[in-house]
């Protein structure tokens, strides 16, 4: 049953989670991803489940290696997320989270663009509730902005799909390419959800405003579905190399100065997506494997980092680097788990980031993209700087904050979820063959040789040295209570301000126009009074006799006409 509709287990779980409560709900929530993963395990590559709707041939489920890999990944992420959020009693979040995971699973198994569109919009709607669930004025506003962007992406996808199918290409979702009719629209739709530069505002705006547990789910699904869609529809598109390089580089500058630590992680999420997008753009087997493997690892290590920051937020109620610090004293387990995540995202040898990021970097230099290679090295050093060092340093070390006195380890289920993530990070990093066996292509790539390991260790050690030196010399910018303007400024400040000032300029004209209108009305009123008022011509009373005369005249006239 689950193999013919892989998202069923999670959707069923979401529905049941809405009806049950207490331990039963926890059991349902835990069982749903496990059942779904079992369904994926039972699937045979090459299977197609289709049906006809209004004369359209739709492929609801298309099974191949790429879809299966993401299928496993999303069930794994859902399971870790569920364990992490077991302590909360919030039906809205539970239902939204499982439905969100189910939409992601449905999207990666979708064999046609229309089915993809349906799940694409479901992703948008279900995930928005994880932002709304914070139940503050701010999260409501952020959630609405998020929803507009996400639904907008879906509208672009639908328009592109109609154009594409209308040109005789059919609806099936395979390689599309930019030259195909509607290809650009579909590319943009995928681009919004993969947080292309200038289209990324929703991510750094909304993810840090979601609930501590919600952000863990958010960071796993939407962007990775988009990466999957790009890998399916636009592999080898040269433009993606440039876009990905930009994505890998620009967010690290923001991440260095950003104060909200979950926003730092949101920027670093874009940076990691950059590596994947470059891999898809290069489009060789090694590069595509690298992109997909990195998506897999990123879900786990970014999830782990988000979970550790969520734990800090849960315990202290604070997420600003300027206010945090010294928590290693009371949260040693969380500190160590966070550092495992930090080592993984920084691609330390023996941790998961290393075995996937190095594939993309190697592919870039092998294919002769030397500038891209240098930029990716820069981004790799930068990610260690802001996600590898800054996150643990400002949350758990730095100065002793006022939260240290009352801090404690987070609930046990949070620790268990983080431990699962940390074990996976170290496990995949140490035994990459298990992950490589799931990848779409067999390239025989091995990350562990002297050159790679030494080069990476040198890069990382000297990045750490640079951080230490800058910090000790007092050059490193301090964490300040502040916000930094990004593209969301355009629609959060510039457009509203422009409209406001335009309205205030228009106000005098508007007032004059209204007064003219009012005077017209009173003129009309006066006219009416003159004709219909109590002394008006038309209000004069007529005797009944005159009416009888006129009736008699008319009747007489019709009689004459009849005889004629």
């Amino acid at each position: 049953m689950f193999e013919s509709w892989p998202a069923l287990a999670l959707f069923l779980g979401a529905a049941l989670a809405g009806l049950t409560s207490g331990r039963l709900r926890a059991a349902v929530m835990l069982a749903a991803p496990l059942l779904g993963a079992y369904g994926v395990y039972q699937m045979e590559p090459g299977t197609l489940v289709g049906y006809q709707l209004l004369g359209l041939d739709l492929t609801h489920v298309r099974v191949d290696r790429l879809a299966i890999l993401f299928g496993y990944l999303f069930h794994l992420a859902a399971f870790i997320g569920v364990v992490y959020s077991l302590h909360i009693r919030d039906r809205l979040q539970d239902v939204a989270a499982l439905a969100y995971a189910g939409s992601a699973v449905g999207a990666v198994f979708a064999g046609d663009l229309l089915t993809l569109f349906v799940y694409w919009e479901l992703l948008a709607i279900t995930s928005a509730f994880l932002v709304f669930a914070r139940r503050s004025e701010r999260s409501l506003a952020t959630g609405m902005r998020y929803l507009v962007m996400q639904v907008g992406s879906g509208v672009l996808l639908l328009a592109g799909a109609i154009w594409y199918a209308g040109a005789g290409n059919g609806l099936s979702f395979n390689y599309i390419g930019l030259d195909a009719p509607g290809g650009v629209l579909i590319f943009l739709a995928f681009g919004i959800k993969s947080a292309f530069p200038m289209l990324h505002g929703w991510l750094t705006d909304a993810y840090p405003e979601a609930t501590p547990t919600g952000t863990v789910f958010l960071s796993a699904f939407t962007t990775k579905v988009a990466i999957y869609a790009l890998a399916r529809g636009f592999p080898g598109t040269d433009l993606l190399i440039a876009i990905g390089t930009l994505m890998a580089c620009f967010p690290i500058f923001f991440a260095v100065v950003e104060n909200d630590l979950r926003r730092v992680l949101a920027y670093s999420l874009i940076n990691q997506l950059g590596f994947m997008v470059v891999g898809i753009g290069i489009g060789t087997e090694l590069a595509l494997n690298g992109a997909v493997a990195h998506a897999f690892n990123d879900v786990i290590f970014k999830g782990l980092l988000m979970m550790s920051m969520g734990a800090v937020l849960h315990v202290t109620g604070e997420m600003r680097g300027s206010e945090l610090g010294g928590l290693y004293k009371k949260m040693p387990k969380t500190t160590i788990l966070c550092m495992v995540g930090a080592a993984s995202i920084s691609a330390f040898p023996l941790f998961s980031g290393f075995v996937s990021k190095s594939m993309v970097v190697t592919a870039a230099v092998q294919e002769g993209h030397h500038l891209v290679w240098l930029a990716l090295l820069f981004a790799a050093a930068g990610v260690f700087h802001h996600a590898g060092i800054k996150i643990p340093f400002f949350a758990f070390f730095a100065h002793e904050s006022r939260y240290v006195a009352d801090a404690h380890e987070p609930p046990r289920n949070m620790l268990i979820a983080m431990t699962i993530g940390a074990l996976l990070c170290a496990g995949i990093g140490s035994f990459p063959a298990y992950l490589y066996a799931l990848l779409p292509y067999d390239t025989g790539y091995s990350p562990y040789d002297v050159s790679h390991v030494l080069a990476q260790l040198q890069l990382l050690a000297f990045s750490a040295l640079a951080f230490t030196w800058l910090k000790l010399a007092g050059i490193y910018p301090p964490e300040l209570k502040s916000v930094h303007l990004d593209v969301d400024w355009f629609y959060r400040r510039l457009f509203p301000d422009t409209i406001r000032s335009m309205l205030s300029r228009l106000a005098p004209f508007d007032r004059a126009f209204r007064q003219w209108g009012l005077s017209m009305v009173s003129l009309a009123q006066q006219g009416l009074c003159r004709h219909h008022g109590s002394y008006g011509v038309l209000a004069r009373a007529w005797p009944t006799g005159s009416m009888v005369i006129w009736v008699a005249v008319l009747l007489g006239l019709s009689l004459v006409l009849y005889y004629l």
Partner: protein
Amino acid sequence: MSGEKRKDYLFDDPRNVRLVVRGLVVACLVLVGLDLVLHRHVAHPWEEMFAFYAVYGFVACVLLVLLAKEMRKLLMRDEDYYERSTRDAGAPRSEESGDV
């Protein structure tokens, strides 16, 4: 009492902090030293340079931080920057409600 208790934690003792920093410096020296002993395969001519990755990593991070600091001058705003803009718009109403 709390002063005594604080001594229990690892980095309250500045000697431990120094130890970490020195450990890092030693690790860096060893890794650069290994460049002399081990041969790295190269796919790009620059990689052949002695300690290429070390220098690149260090310079990249310093540049990153210095540029980010410059960026701050242009882009940094008060923490309530966005909230304030919406509050300004509703200012007449808040005056009516007696906010000072």
